[in-house]
């Protein structure tokens, strides 16, 4: 994944708002801080649990892309094995329909 590193010594995604697809089926959206042996560290995180939360995961991501991240949790660490995929929130269309 390409991108700018604005703080020397930090990882490429540091400071970038990302969408994490979780192995258990949920989604976390938050600002990437770092990744280490304990997992992916996110700040100001919004979560969606598939099959529990409405709307659908896709609609949740689109809504967040348009209206911003509702920071329900200040900081979250997601174990490496629980994270299937990391994408930038900016990849998702936030255009007004």
């Amino acid at each position: 994944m390409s991108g700018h590193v604005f703080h020397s010594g930090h990882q490429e995604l540091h400071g970038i708002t990302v969408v994490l697809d979780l192995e258990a089926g949920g989604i976390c959206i938050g600002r990437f801080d770092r990744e280490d042996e304990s997992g992916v560290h996110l700040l100001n995180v919004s979560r969606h649990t598939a099959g529990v939360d409405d709307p659908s995961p896709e609609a949740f991501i689109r809504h967040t892309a348009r209206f911003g991240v509702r920071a329900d949790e200040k900081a979250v660490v997601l174990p490496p094995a629980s994270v299937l995929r990391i994408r930038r929130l900016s990849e998702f269309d936030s255009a007004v329909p």
Partner: protein
Amino acid sequence: MPYDPRLVQPMRDEMVRMGAQELKTVPEVDLALGDQKGTTLVFVNSVCGCAAGNARPSLALALAHQVRPQHVVTVFAGQDLEATSRARQYFSGYQPSSPSMALFRDGEVVHMIHRHQIEGRPPQAIATELAAAFDRYCATSSV
């Protein structure tokens, strides 16, 4: 806790140089954003180097566009806390982020650029998006 004012002063100065009016108090925000007519761009400034370092230059580039908002104002997140909180009350329905930019027309948010739409993007790309929004929403009210 706000940063040392001396540290953020250059970031304030950068906004003023491009013609933005700083709003540091709640009454100043209400005066600028209450009962609006025409077009106003609100820039939520930030010390964050990940995004604000590109956001400010992008607005400077966009303001060189022929069509631009009638008013450009700025609040400083993490610094002028009450003013920023008040300004965000006018962005009904949008989650707070900084830096961010909200374009108003007659008191309604017609275009929003969140922090996640600024991160990692070059200033020219953000400026192009802003200029397109200016063309769409400010064309009949440009100064």
